């Protein structure tokens, strides 16, 4: 990639962070935080976006950011007060700036009319002519004189200036055998800087015990100079296989360095009381330092010392592809480990406490540890998704004329990156739904004795190895009478169906269900909660709703932490081994003859307690066997399918429950109906992972062709 292009990519990545910082700061200001650091971080974010935008010639973005920055500068300077109205305008401006950034990234232009309107509003709030307000700001100032310098550094800079290395060098006999000489190595080391050499002759034996070709001496060298570690290693490049070598950075009086740093920081931060060692040089500076911030001056040195002593956590940016490759390899490792364990068990018999078995247990433990650590690399806080929601809430609230406050919790909860990326859609939809359908209008709320401002809560947390995300509102709750009427009208349930409250609430997840009397612009568009349910299920998750009339509703999503492994039920069908995702399985049972009823010539239903569910023979559905398994001989897995409610899947028997590593079938073969992915089992065989919904849908199509009217309305069979 051309270097400018690479920097451009960096710029847009950084913009995301800056926009998040901007919004976070503005929201803090909205909550009444008006301290200098909050305001300055907001200013800095806009300023930095403008700066980068300028470098890439993104003129509309820069023009807009400039107006934005001017108002922020005045707020920072105390000229303009950040009242409610001003902050609302700033929030709108931050949304607009985000639009400018994404437009610039995608090579388009943002909505100019909107941009101009918001910019005009910002200008109106800005007092008089903001300083530096002109586009063509002079890049040169008159009458300044600068001191030229020479490229020179003081010879022996005080402080921890020069690198120092402690080198321990212990030649082996082989070094001398290859006609190398330790003296030559030491001499070369001396050419890198000043060396102090110490020799340890302790190991030299008495003459009668000495091997003339042996090596008994080892040296410790302290090297001070400009050389970096690579240069030091270079000296040993011919002998490093024939010696013990340890190169360590010498600790150049760390306490002194920290003291020096903190005293300099104190000077930089506030012109505080000068530390004695620098006294003569500093008086001028103190005189020149601006008065003010005396309180800050007192605390600064202590704070500085603290941060100097504790190095900040270091981070590196790594290409995602490398991480994915690592994850893939670890997946292979897990499979290999399982295979090895199975082989050993088969050959030595279970329960044998042999050394091999013990070592295997250790290996398993280590493998799990590696897997967890690698997964943790990909784990990301859900913050990136949560952060986008305040804007959504503002826009939706404005569009439907409702006042909404968004409360978020647990935004640092971590989950796999791929899961994070796919959370955005269902959460967005649930929040739209909560504002549009859940919350009442301000007038209705006041009439019901509630505050005019509605509240939507978005929370995330870990619960038993899964991430649970909840969206709740304090609105009117599900209007059950209307939901039921609608469901009957749409033919989703029978007119005389008797449903519990919970069952009625869950009807909203059925495909094609929409309760909005007039389809609104916000959550209409023919997308309902069924789409949310579908995207949650695609992630191996579940969603449910609970609702209290007049008190509000709560949607709860539970998702796996990663898409790389899956808890599965391993089953046999014919001569095949298949894996059914555990999350889809409600229960498993052995049907009794009287529970199986025929329905038409080829279909059966299974009576479970007092409901009938369709029975699907997996072997036939997947084409593994021509003949149908006698249901009373096999095992039925009662599964929750999307669209068809509960369905019983017939398999021959269950082998057990285990975690499997998911291998994409699409990437390695091609998408196949009824199969979600593949995995490799402990015995090395490939097993297909069932796509429950795919199997059910395919089976319904076949059944429909054969025998269209033979089905009961599905919801009746639901719980």
């Amino acid at each position, binding site marked *: 990639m051309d270097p400018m292009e690479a920097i451009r990519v960096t710029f847009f990545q950084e913009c995301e962070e800056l926009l998040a910082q901007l919004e976070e700061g503005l929201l803090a200001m909205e909550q009444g935080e008006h301290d200098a650091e909050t305001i300055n971080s907001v200013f800095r974010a806009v300023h930095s976006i403008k*700066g980068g935008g300028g470098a890439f010639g993104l003129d509309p973005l820069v023009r807009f950011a400039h107006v934005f920055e001017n108002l922020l500068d005045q707020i920072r300077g105390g000229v303009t007060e950040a009242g409610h109205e001003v902050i609302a305008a700033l929030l709108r401006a931050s949304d607009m700036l985000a639009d400018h950034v994404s437009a610039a990234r995608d090579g388009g232009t943002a909505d100019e009319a909107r941009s101009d309107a918001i910019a005009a509003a910002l200008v109106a709030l800005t007092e008089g002519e903001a300083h530096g307000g002109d586009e063509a700001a002079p890049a040169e100032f008159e009458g300044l004189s600068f001191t*030229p310098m020479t490229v020179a550094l*003081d010879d022996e800079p005080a402080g921890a*200036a020069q690198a120092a290395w402690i080198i321990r060098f212990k030649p082996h006999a082989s070094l001398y055998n290859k006609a190398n000489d330790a003296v030559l190595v030491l001499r070369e080391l001396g050419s890198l800087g000043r060396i102090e050499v110490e020799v340890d002759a302790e190991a030299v034996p008495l003459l009668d015990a000495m091997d003339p070709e042996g090596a008994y001496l080892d040296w410790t060298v302290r090297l001070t100079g400009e050389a970096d570690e690579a240069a030091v290693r270079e000296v040993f490049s011919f002998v490093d296989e024939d010696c013990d070598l340890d190169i360590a950075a010498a600790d150049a009086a760390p306490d002194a360095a920290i003291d020096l740093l903190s005293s300099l920081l104190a000077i930089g931060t506030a012109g505080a009381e000068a530390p004695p060692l620098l006294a003569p040089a500093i008086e001028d*500076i103190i005189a020149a330092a601006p008065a003010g911030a005396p309180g800050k001056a007192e605390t600064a040195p202590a704070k500085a010392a603290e941060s100097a002593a504790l190095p900040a956590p270091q981070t590196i940016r790594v290409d995602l592809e490398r991480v994915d490759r690592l994850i893939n390899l670890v997946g292979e490792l897990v499979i290999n480990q399982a295979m090895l364990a199975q082989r050993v068990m088969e050959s030595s018999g279970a329960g044998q406490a042999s050394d091999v078995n013990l070592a295997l247990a250790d290996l398993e433990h280590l493998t799990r540890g590696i897997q967890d650590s690698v997964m943790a690399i990909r784990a990301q806080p859900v913050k990136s998704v949560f952060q986008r929601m305040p804007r959504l809430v503002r826009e939706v609230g404005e569009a439907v004329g409702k006042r909404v406050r968004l409360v978020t919790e647990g935004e640092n909860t971590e989950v796999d990156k791929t899961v994070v990326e796919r959370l955005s859609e269902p959460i967005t939809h649930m929040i739209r739904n909560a504002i549009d359908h859940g919350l009442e209008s301000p007038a209705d709320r006041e009439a019901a004795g509630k505050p005019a401002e509605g509240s939507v809560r978005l929370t995330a947390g870990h619960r038993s190895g899964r991430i649970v995300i909840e969206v709740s509102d304090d609105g009117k709750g599900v209007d059950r009478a209307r939901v039921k009427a609608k469901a009957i009208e749409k033919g989703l349930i029978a007119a005389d169906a008797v449903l519990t409250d919970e069952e009625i609430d869950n009807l909203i997840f059925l495909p094609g269900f929409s309760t909005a009397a007039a389809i609104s612009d916000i959550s209409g568009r023919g997308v309902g909660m069924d789409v949310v349910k579908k995207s949650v299920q695609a992630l191996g998750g579940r969603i449910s709703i609970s609702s209290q009339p007049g008190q509000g509703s709560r949607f709860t999503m539970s998702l796996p932490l990663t898409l790389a492994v899956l808890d599965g039920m391993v089953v046999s069908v014919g001569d095949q081994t298949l894996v059914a995702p555990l999350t889809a399985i409600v229960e498993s049972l052995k049907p009794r003859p009287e529970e199986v009823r025929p329905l038409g010539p080829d279909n059966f239903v299974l009576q479970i307690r007092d409901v009938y569910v369709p029975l699907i023979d997996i072997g036939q559905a997947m084409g593994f066997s021509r003949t149908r398994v006698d249901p009373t001989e096999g095992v039925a897995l009662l599964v929750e399918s999307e669209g068809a409610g509960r369905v019983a899947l017939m398999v021959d028997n269950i082998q057990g429950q285990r975690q499997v590593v998911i291998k994409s079938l699409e990437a390695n073969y091609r998408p196949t109906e009824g199969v979600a992915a593949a995995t490799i089992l402990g015995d090395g065989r490939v097993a297909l992972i069932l796509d429950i919904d795919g199997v059910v849908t395919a089976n319904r199509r076949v059944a429909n062709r054969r025998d269209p009217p033979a089905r009961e309305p599905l919801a009746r069979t639901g719980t």
Partner: protein
Amino acid sequence: MPAASSIRALVVDDQLTMRALVRAGLQQIGMTDIREAADGEAGLRVLLEKPAHLVVTDFNMPKLDGLGLLRAIRSHPPLRTTAVIMLTGRADAELVQRAVQYGVNNYLVKPFTVATLKEKIEAVFGQLT
């Protein structure tokens, strides 16, 4: 005429993009020894570890800002020969004045071209080879 390749530089800016841009500019001028720091405090730490001939620093940064870094540099005798060029986002005369008081060696208004960057550095060190 100092050789650009003999100049050890430090770029201090809280923005990754800006650091990358300055670094690219310095490299184009012919510098090879370029270090980076994300704020004044980190910059100071880098300088104490190993001084630099040239510091190109942003003004507005968290922790220790550009003026603070400049003052710290000027107050520490071993760093006194370090040339400091201040990057400023706004053509802010007052800010530049203050930087001059503290002994800045030149300034650069963002966005800048490599030619301007070179010009400003040459105004400090003389023509580069």
